[in-house]
């Protein structure tokens, strides 16, 4: 296993050296290399997108899994290793033990930076601070349990050469099983109309904590792994120092970012062009990513922090909107490349380990998040729902596994195990979560009397346009009243609305406007919606004072061919 580690460590360096050497030695070579890269990208993008679509459409699974599966299919260890292109050689070939060429891996790295930059940008920091108590306990519980079980699983598994909790590979297996990918859960909660339920609110708050703590944990582990890889001994004093440095970097840079974000964006805004502004902001995220790596952390940490810093500025929405196109094309490349790295031949001996690691990854989140929930206000049913909601791992686990593989900390077998765990948890979470929501309230009896029951307010309008118009007005009114309105990326336009202990969801389903609200808050939702309806009536009244539409039409037409 260590041989493989060494081989993987040097893979990137070798590939990089090979690239520059090739470029130096002949003008043709670099064109040749780029031609190969472009053909690879063409195959990757097309296959990843089709795979993602098929998984989503027919298996009702997240597209990420389809992109991963496409990668496994076209990678050097499967079809890619069999397709020979004249004058170019194999479409995808293993290079010194690494499944992707340095230039292809570079593009995947760029994609992972975009992914984390946008994740930071979408973080609801205000809600994070406001809902800190419940969220922090659930998030922290899940994090500690997942990290400990992931790490110990590697330590106690016989014959893998890992025998200490502090072994970099063990630390990585711990950190890989930490990050929850709440997107899948959010979609299910929205579909089941449970987002405003106490469980839904707790899961989403916990997930924000999970993200932030997960990034800090990764920072610490990266620091420790780097010391350990360079031959140093990691003792407790050193760990304290590394942890302080990682947390310090996170806290200081995030605080500076939050403090200066408005000033920086005000300065950038002088360019007056949204494209330039968005590009500069993205440039800044790359800059911070590089600085984070220089500081001994990981690039994605810097990207996430930059996103977090900008998340509270008015540019957040613009940046998200403009990067969406790049995201849609680049991020599937990342997942596909991760899939390509799965070497099935080295997977056989680690299958049993992978199965146990995956089971522990499930168990640790259900117990780690469920227990704090149970101790606070939920019954067994509610705690199970919260645990299952925090179950799916996704993007961040894959990125961390990729970093581990590229830096030689984990070998291809362990990388495969990480992918296996990600796939299993992501596939299991939706059916289990849906099933867990059968049955009654998840709150303890004494808490339930406080109005935990969810009420649905449904209104149908004559057309989709009117519903959309009213939803937008309602969202603006809620924001004016200092509610946190969080747009969720689900099929139907869905918003999570929060203010102090008031939480509900607002959804547009065709011509229908649907509000799911706990009984205790239903008065507020009803009253605010009523006011918006009345203002809509005012608006409709005022259109009657408009000049006759026919007259306005003929005014417009009359000038046309004069």
């Amino acid at each position, binding site marked *: 296993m260590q041989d493989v580690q060494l081989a993987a460590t040097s893979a990137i360096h070798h590939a990089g050296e090979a690239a520059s050497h090739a470029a130096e030695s002949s003008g043709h070579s670099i064109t040749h290399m780029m031609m190969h890269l472009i053909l690879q990208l063409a195959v990757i993008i097309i296959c990843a997108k089709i795979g993602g679509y098929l998984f989503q459409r027919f298996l009702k699974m997240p597209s990420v899994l389809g992109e991963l599966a496409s990668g496994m299919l076209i990678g050097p260890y499967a079809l890619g290793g069999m397709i020979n292109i004249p004058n170019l050689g194999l479409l995808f070939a293993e290079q010194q033990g690494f499944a992707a060429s340095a230039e292809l891996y570079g593009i995947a790295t760029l994609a992972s930076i975009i992914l984390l930059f946008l994740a930071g940008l979408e973080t609801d920091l205000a809600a994070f601070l406001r809902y800190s108590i419940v969220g922090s306990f659930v998030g922290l519980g899940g994090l500690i349990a997942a990290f400990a079980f992931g790490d110990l699983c590697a330590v106690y598994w016989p014959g893998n050469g890992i025998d200490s909790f502090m072994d970099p590979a063990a630390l990585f297996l711990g950190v890989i099983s930490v990050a929850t990918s709440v997107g899948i859960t959010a979609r299910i909660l929205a579909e089941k109309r449970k987002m405003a339920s106490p469980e839904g609110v707790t899961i989403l708050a916990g997930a924000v904590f999970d993200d932030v703590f997960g990034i800090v944990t990764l920072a610490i582990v990266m620091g420790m792994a780097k010391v350990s890889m360079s031959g140093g001994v990691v003792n407790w004093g050193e760990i304290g120092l590394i942890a302080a440095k990682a947390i310090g970097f996170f806290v200081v840079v995030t605080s500076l970012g939050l403090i200066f974000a408005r000033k920086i964006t005000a300065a950038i805004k002088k360019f007056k062009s949204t494209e330039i502004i968005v590009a500069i902001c993205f440039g800044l995220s790359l800059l911070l990513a590089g600085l984070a790596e220089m500081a001994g952390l990981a690039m994605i940490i810097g990207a996430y922090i930059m996103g977090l810093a900008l998340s509270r500025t008015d540019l957040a929405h613009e940046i998200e909107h403009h990067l969406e196109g790049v995201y849609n094309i680049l991020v599937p490349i990342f997942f596909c490349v991760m899939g390509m790295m799965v070497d099935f031949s080295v997977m056989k001996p680690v299958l049993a380990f992978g199965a146990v690691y995956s089971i522990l990854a499930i168990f640790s989140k259900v117990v780690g998040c469920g227990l704090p929930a149970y101790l606070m206000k939920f019954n067994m049913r509610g705690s199970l729902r919260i645990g299952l909601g925090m179950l799916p791992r996704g993007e961040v686990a894959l990125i961390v596994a990729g970093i581990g593989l590229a830096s030689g900390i984990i070998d291809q077998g362990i990388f495969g195990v990480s992918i296996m765990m990600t796939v299993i948890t992501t596939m299991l979470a939706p059916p289990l979560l849906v099933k867990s929501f059968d049955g009654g309230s998840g709150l303890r009896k004494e808490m339930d009397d406080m*109005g935990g029951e969810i009420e649905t307010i449904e209104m149908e309008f004559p057309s989709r346009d009117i519903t959309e118009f009213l939803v937008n007005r309602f969202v603006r009114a809620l924001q*004016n*009243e*200092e*509610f946190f309105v969080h747009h969720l990326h689900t099929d139907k336009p869905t918003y999570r609305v929060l*203010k*102090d202990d*008031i939480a509900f969801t607002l959804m547009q389903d065709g011509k229908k406007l649907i509000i799911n609200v706990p009984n*205790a*808050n239903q*008065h*507020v939702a009803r*009253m*605010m919606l*009523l006011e918006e309806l*009345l203002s809509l*009536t*005012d608006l409709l009244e005022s259109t009657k004072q408009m000049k006759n539409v026919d007259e306005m039409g003929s005014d417009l037409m009359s000038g046309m061919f004069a």
Partner: protein
Amino acid sequence: MNLKKVLTPDAVWIDLKADSKQEIIELMVDRLVAAGKVQDRDTVLTAVLEREAKMSTGMQNGVAIPHGKTDAVQSLVVAVGICKTGVKFDSMDGSPCTLFIMTLSPVKRSGPHIQFLAEISRLISQPAEREKLLAAKTSGEMYEILIRK
């Protein structure tokens, strides 16, 4: 939120007497003027009556929530009153209203308006609490019931 934060004893009245919607709203605004919480009586009154003209704020079980948004107030002003004889208020269930909750807030600035509405509606949606409020003998007693939670 504790209602004590926004509700003061001089804006809780047990002895309102009026025969119509217009009268009870005028009476409440006048009392707010007398308590020094409202300066521009007419503007405030117009705002509340305009809102009332769009749709009655008379709810069910004798509760009405007349309110208005106007820049004649600088921050949230609230008042709670009882008119034991009941006032015809075009309420949803047709019954006369006895319990009145008035809120006045600035047009643009948001404040504790929503928390106040959330808290007080939570209280008065419980029949037992409503009974207690209506059974109160003095305005002071009623104020105590309101701020107890």
